[in-house]
């Protein structure tokens, strides 16, 4: 086939439901032979933070932020009906019931399919996150110019 078509996703949200939508599109795009880049920014960074260990950052405000906003694929909440965890727990059970992969499994799958997962440099800087706050599937840290250049060459670009 000719040169691969590109799909670029901005994952701004750290909500479970929105992350699910993003990974469904990313893995489907990769299955369709597209070259997929996911650009994680702001709350979206929570999706690709490591699940285990603590997040190291400098300064009292950033330390507080990273305790209160710990993140990690297993800690994501629903944008609606979280209900102190009950709603999210139920939704995860429903996902399992229809054999849908968890966010954790989607990340592994997407990575194996060649989906690029890139954290945004400005959000990382502001929130005091370095590359080792993220799981190994994430690669590099890049800025808006990188994203826009990817988007410029993409057939499809979405902001989630």
């Amino acid at each position: 086939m000719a040169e691969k078509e590109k799909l670029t996703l901005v994952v701004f949200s750290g909500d479970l439901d929105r992350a699910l939508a993003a990974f469904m599109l990313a893995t489907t795009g990769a299955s369709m032979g597209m070259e997929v880049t996911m650009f994680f920014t702001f709350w979206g960074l929570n999706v690709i933070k490591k699940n285990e260990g603590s997040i190291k950052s400098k300064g009292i405000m950033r330390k507080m932020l990273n305790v209160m906003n710990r993140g990690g694929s297993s800690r994501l909440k629903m944008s609606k009906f979280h209900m102190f965890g009950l709603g999210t727990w139920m939704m995860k059970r429903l996902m399992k019931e229809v054999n849908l992969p968890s966010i954790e499994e989607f990340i592994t799958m997407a990575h194996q399919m060649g989906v690029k997962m890139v954290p945004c440099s400005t959000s990382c800087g502001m929130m005091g996150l370095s590359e080792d706050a993220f799981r190994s599937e994430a690669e590099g840290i890049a800025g808006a110019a990188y994203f826009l250049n990817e988007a410029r060459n993409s057939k499809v670009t979405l902001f989630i």
Partner: protein
Amino acid sequence: MKADQSLDCMGLYCPMPIVKTAEKMKQLKKGEVLEVVADDKGIKQDMPAWCEATGHECLGIEEKGGEIRTYVRKAHD
């Protein structure tokens, strides 16, 4: 319809049947036919769309008693 290989996607919802089809197609040789058995109605639209995007050939869709069989011929490596 006769197929060279079959893929069971019963009980799976979008995007899993498509993701699994793409993975399975790697094992087929050019010209061979893959049968995908699913019960998610979305596949009736998704498989032709996937074929259009990837250049493989969607040979047909058969539906019987909630079981949807789609047939795809691998058109290229």
